[in-house]
């Protein structure tokens, strides 16, 4: 690498600015433009992305900034945009929608101001001119107003994410299908690394709430953080977050490969899902009734990280997928070198 990268002081400054903007619920896109984010990102993609998404998670922000990450990888495989784009995410893991039926998926926000929606779909055998593409994805582009007509706001576990589900968008209205080649694989890998960072931020915030609560709360004449059962749960949560952080650093190490470092990115998404489950389970328990009521902020992190886990593959599904491939003979890659 020849780029100098972000130094600690600059990173701290940027994190502070992002934290302010996100806390005020301001316009993230405008704030990023003002910070000269494109340059920061070009200079040190790993650190910049991790910083941005960790703050996004910590602030429980909702925006379409993840779209930018995936669309940047897909751009080369797509015709020139006629206006602002959004991405339709698969409902299940990284499996693109079946183009033969009505299209379903997830949007990270409303489509106001969006012109076209990029829809990854499973590759039809007929489309796969090059057999090497078989099993991959094709990208289709739908006019935003057609997709908008098929959206419903998510009223599930995390009502604050601002996501929309799309059911039954008319696939027929899509323009020509472009084989995505490895672009979709790369986009998923990049998205998984960003989501892992967002989960780190949310987990850190939840753990901080639990540490503060248990240190202040007194029972039996002493702070409940002096009870070993409580301390050990918090220690385990810390281990989960730290292991995720290390694995994310490693996952960035292979991001420059042709497939975008897909193998390591899948591993880190799996770890992120596991880590959020671990952190939230312990945090909720040690906060007592407070932890499961609307009186505390904790529930927001529980719901948000559950939603983030789902996006581009939840950890149960990823573990099963990975194990099945390993049983079928996939190489047990060492991934990490000294």
């Amino acid at each position, binding site marked *: 690498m020849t780029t100098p990268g972000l130094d600690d002081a600059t990173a701290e400054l940027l994190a502070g600015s992002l934290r302010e903007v996100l806390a005020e619920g301001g316009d993230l896109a405008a704030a990023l433009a003002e910070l000269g984010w494109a340059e920061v990102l070009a200079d040190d993609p790993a650190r910049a992305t991790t910083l941005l998404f960790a703050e996004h998670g910590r602030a429980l922000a909702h925006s379409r900034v993840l779209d930018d990450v995936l669309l940047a990888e897909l751009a080369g495989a797509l015709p020139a945009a006629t206006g602002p784009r959004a991405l339709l995410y698969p409902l299940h893991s990284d499996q693109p929608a079946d183009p033969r039926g009505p299209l379903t998926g997830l949007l990270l926000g409303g489509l106001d101001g969006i012109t076209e929606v990029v829809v990854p779909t499973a590759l039809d055998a007929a489309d796969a001119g090059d057999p090497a593409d078989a099993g991959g994805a094709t990208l289709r582009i739908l006019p935003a107003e057609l997709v908008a007509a098929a959206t419903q706001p998510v009223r599930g576990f995390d009502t604050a994410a601002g996501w929309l589900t799309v059911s039954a968008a008319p696939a027929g209205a899509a323009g020509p299908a472009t084989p995505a080649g490895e672009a979709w694989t790369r986009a998923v890998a990049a998205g998984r690394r960003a989501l892992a960072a967002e989960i780190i931020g949310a987990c850190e915030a939840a753990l901080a709430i639990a540490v503060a609560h248990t240190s202040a709360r007194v029972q039996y004449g002493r702070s409940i953080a002096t*009870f070993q059962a409580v*301390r050990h749960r918090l220690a385990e949560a*810390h281990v989960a977050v730290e292991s995720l952080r290390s694995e994310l650093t490693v996952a960035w190490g292979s991001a420059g490969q042709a497939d975008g470092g897909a193998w390591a990115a899948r591993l880190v998404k799996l770890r992120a899902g596991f880590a959020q489950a671990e952190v939230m389970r312990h945090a909720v328990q040690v906060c007592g009734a407070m932890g499961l009521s609307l009186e505390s902020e904790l529930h927001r992190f529980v719901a948000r990280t559950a939603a983030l886990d789902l996006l581009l593959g939840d950890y149960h599904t990823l*573990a099963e997928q990975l*194990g099945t491939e390993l049983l079928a003979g996939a*190489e047990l890659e060492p991934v*990490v070198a000294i």
Partner: protein
Amino acid sequence: MTTTTASGPTATEAAVTDPAVLRDDLDAYARGLRAWLASEPALDRWRGRHYPNTEERIADHGLLMGVLFRAGWNRYGWPESAGGLGGDERHRAVLYDGLAAAGLPIPAPHLMLETLGPPVVHFAPELAAAYLPAYLRGEQWWGQGFSEPEAGSDLASLRCRARREGDTYVLSGSKLWTSHGATSSRLVCLVRTGTPESRHRGLSMIMLDADAPGVTIRPIALASGENELAEVFFDDVVVPASNLVGEEGKGWAVAMYLLQWERAMYAWLSAADALRRLRDLRGQVATRLAAGARLPDGSAARLGAVYEQIIALRARSAATVRRLAAGDTVGPEASVDKVLLATVEISLFDLARDLLGTEFVLGATDEVRAWRNEWWFSRSATILGGSAEVQRTIIADHVLGLPKEAK
């Protein structure tokens, strides 16, 4: 899929033999090592090998160290003054990883070498110069005498005494659970030189010959039947005062220094070996599946999860090894590595046990016997070198900064 290992060695790669280059250029060392591991026929004798007992295993592993020493590979990472060829912890980490990737065992004596070598090199360079070369050659190894019958997790309560008499110390008391104790040539012991109440302030570290007059060693078998451990009795054993590792009364500081390697290098080394064993397990399961066996529900997901846990441990401990190599002090945060390591060991060998199923319980082949022995040994991951509970308490105290535990 990512590939971190290069393909076959080329002529130029194999040609680097200049120790100064291998010392200063870690990539050249890694390439040279890989090429040698792939091409040295003498190594085949250690692949997929099973032993009737631990004593024969460790002796044969000593011979493997001799082969590694003569070719130079296990001398990197240790100072020239102690029989090494220079370099740092990263060389040692690359060696362990390379051995495991080549289907070879990491020689058992290297475990204690990683724990005891660094403090002896640092605090007692003349002892390192005298004894470490023979260790690296695999001719002898050392035992770590910390735990005692009444001092386990609460190590600072230990009572084995060393009283000063002229130029010597006279040891009396006992040590328990000494790994490789029955076959070790030398023991590095934490002993009490202060008053019985002095806790960690009155401790000293000292090295002594295992066959010194007054030393009695009783092997102790793990539940597998393997003599992995020993109890050591000291009956007025006279040890030269020059055998102190660090100053008198500073034993606790030496022990804390040692813990950095015991937690970090052991984690990396174990992760390397865990990946090799997961590969073995996958192979054995594939054979069984081909013969029509069914796996228990959820096996695939567990296999995927264990593999990912090993990679997470590698990610964490590689960073710690690099910090050690850079000369950083690795503090209480090394407990994170230890917790991750214990999780890997427990889940890997539980998975092996469950996937092997009936075989694990009833089978009598060498392979299954090895899995059973290792299953028992894996249970020690949450006990030895600071139990799972002790590690969590360290994180709560020193990393999270929680108020101190209720007494």
